[in-house]
């Protein structure tokens, strides 16, 4: 095993990787930006080095700085996590040059899958079904013509994109131009490349993906599928494994297709092949993510397979100790991404100081997070606070457990989507497994608390206001009565202190 591993990331995924590396006996090296000095990944790593300003372009995206720390600390390998440099071909190449092991696939595999057009061609050669669309990037002039040809609704997607950035759904011709502009602008600011392509939009589509794990000895396995259809702003919010609506036959077919694409690029490590699926289980290749996925925990929970540890082991040359036939699905897992965002205002990010945090614990509950009471959510990074994951013997039991666990989650100081997530868990359509990526749009009633008993909130507010007046003692007049009450209440069980 590597003696020392650098984790070129931040937040919960850095924490996740640090834990895995420590359990494998490796010394862990964290890097951090100005904004992240008090982040949990710095506190948990064995070593930590400052690498620059808060903006990712000044720290986590600067290849030279990461390599410098690796050399200075003597790290033998780098785990890039997701985002940042994880799918950066240049970074993988640089590691190779510096004789530092990049924990991920080859630079070549990253390059091939990183460009959507190339990936599409590889898929085509591997006889994987594809959604009809433009053959590669299109100019501003061509784009609306392609859209006309394949027929509305269409999707505009950034060639260099991922994670919903630089992506726009256009339902009718009039909106095409403004959507194209927005998509290109986002693509430019997110990836420094504003080329986009256009393809048919599948109605009531589901997002289903296959987890791949491949060693460097020719073994490529699929760890079954994840259902990721519950999305907002084209980003996943709730994921589960297995998928509630796919047959064993489709599962096998998708798995085999995913293995085929992976083998076509000589893939090694953990990867995800994403598909769009219609309500009749027809599926089309979307893209391959050549890194660990945010939602990898649900796969871990139903297989007992530690994806992150195996990424490290595979990079270290170890061989997978089992074959496809040894793998099976055990129970059901659901993940909810808890975000600092406001569902009532189109999930607008809500940065700020987390005055109080209490996460649920107990049987079947896994909280992958990097927050704590006193942590500040800045606007420099993704506003994800936690990945709450549960496992139970059935989908129904897992959803019941998730609803209970979410009700235990307390986050004070920013707006969060916790209430929204609870309402999704209790929604009949969701419970029946009738999922598509338009689910949230179709259920605007889930965005707000609706008709709840507000009285306890009012009581708590009154007690808090009374308490604050009591402790500051700023007003000696009308509060005297309250102070007396406080003392009396103290005697009878309630207390104001």
């Amino acid at each position, binding site marked *: 095993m590597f003696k020392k591993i650098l984790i070129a990331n931040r937040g919960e995924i850095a924490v996740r990787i640090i834990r895995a590396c420590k359990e494998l006996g490796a010394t862990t090296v964290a890097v951090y930006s100005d904004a992240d000095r008090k982040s949990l990944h710095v506190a948990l790593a064995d070593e930590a080095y400052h690498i620059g300003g808060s903006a990712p372009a000044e720290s986590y995206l600067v290849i030279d700085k990461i390599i410098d720390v690796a050399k200075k600390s003597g790290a033998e390998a780098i785990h890039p996590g997701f985002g940042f440099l994880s799918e950066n071909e240049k970074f993988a190449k640089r590691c190779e040059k510096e004789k530092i092991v990049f924990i991920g696939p080859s630079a070549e595999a990253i390059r091939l899958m990183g460009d959507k057009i190339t990936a599409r061609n590889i898929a085509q050669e591997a006889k994987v079904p594809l959604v009809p669309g433009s053959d590669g990037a299109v100019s501003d002039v061509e784009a609306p013509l392609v859209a006309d040809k394949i027929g509305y609704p269409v999707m505009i997607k950034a060639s260099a994109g991922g994670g919903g*950035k630089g992506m726009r759904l256009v339902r009718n011709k009039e909106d095409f131009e403004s959507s194209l502009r*927005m998509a290109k*602008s*986002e693509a430019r*600011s*997110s990836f420094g490349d504003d080329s986009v392509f256009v393809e048919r939009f599948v109605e009531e589509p589901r997002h289903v993906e296959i987890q791949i794990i491949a060693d460097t000895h020719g073994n490529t396995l699929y760890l079954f599928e994840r259902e990721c259809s519950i999305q907002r*702003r084209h980003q996943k919010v709730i994921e589960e494994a297995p998928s509630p609506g796919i047959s064993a036959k489709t599962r096998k077919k998708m798995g085999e297709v995913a293995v085929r694409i992976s083998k076509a690029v000589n893939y090694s490590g953990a990867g995800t092949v994403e598909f769009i699926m219609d309500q009749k289980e027809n599926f089309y290749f979307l893209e391959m993510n050549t890194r660990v996925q945010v939602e990898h925990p649900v796969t871990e929970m139903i297989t007992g397979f530690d994806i992150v540890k195996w990424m490290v082991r595979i990079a270290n040359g170890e061989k997978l100790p089992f074959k496809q036939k040894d793998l099976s699905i055990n129970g059901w897992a659901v993940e909810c991404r808890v975000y600092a965002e406001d569902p009532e*205002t*189109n999930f*607008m*990010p*809500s*940065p700020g100081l987390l*005055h*109080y945090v*209490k996460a649920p614990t107990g049987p079947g509950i896994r909280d992958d997070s990097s927050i704590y009471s006193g942590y500040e959510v800045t*606007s*420099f*990074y*993704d*506003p994800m606070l936690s990945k709450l994951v549960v496992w139970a013997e059935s989908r129904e039991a897992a959803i019941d457990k998730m609803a209970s666990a*979410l*009700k235990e989650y*307390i986050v*004070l*100081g920013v*707006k*969060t989507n*916790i*209430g*929204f*997530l*609870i309402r999704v868990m209790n929604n009949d359509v969701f419970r029946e497994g009738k999922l598509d990526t338009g689910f949230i749009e179709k259920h605007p009633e889930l965005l707000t608390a609706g008709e*709840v008993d*507000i*009285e*306890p*909130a*009012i*009581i*708590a*507010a*009154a*007690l*808090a*206001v*009374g308490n*604050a*007046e009591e402790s500051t003692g700023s007003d000696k007049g*009308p*509060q005297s009565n*309250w102070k*007396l*009450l406080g003392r*009396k*209440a103290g005697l*009878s*069980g*309630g207390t*104001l202190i």
Partner: protein
Amino acid sequence: MTYTFKIKDKVFSVEIEQEKDQTVVKINEEGRPVEFEKIDDYIYSIIVDGKSLTIGVLKNGNNIQVFMDGDLFEIEAISERDQMKSSQVLSGVQEIKSPMPSRVVKILKEIGDEVDADEGIVVVEAMKMESELKSPIEGKVTDVLVNEGDAVEAGNTLLIVSSD
């Protein structure tokens, strides 16, 4: 002591009294005995008629954020003076402020443009996501205080809309 709280558009009058050995909270004149304990600086455990509730409260001036069962309720504590003012309807001059540190991506309206209530007037980007800010009222854009590409802080006024 009596408090007046406003949640969304509803106004509640709340009174806390000590009757014999128990604390009684009256909401809009209707009282119920409340057994309560402060668990933490921000957390209250409340038992009302056997029902146990754990509620987070964050107080910032007159703004009280109450966290209950996953939802955050914004409560405004209204002083008597404020109560007089609050009869005023949402109109007049509205400042469109950036809700967080962000970058101005696109200004959708110019000075003099008419806007509807809830119509988008400026697009900002923060945390890698674009968000459209909307006008809270119907009116006319009377001032644009930023340029596209500007970095702005939370609370910075971006545009001004007037209903007059």
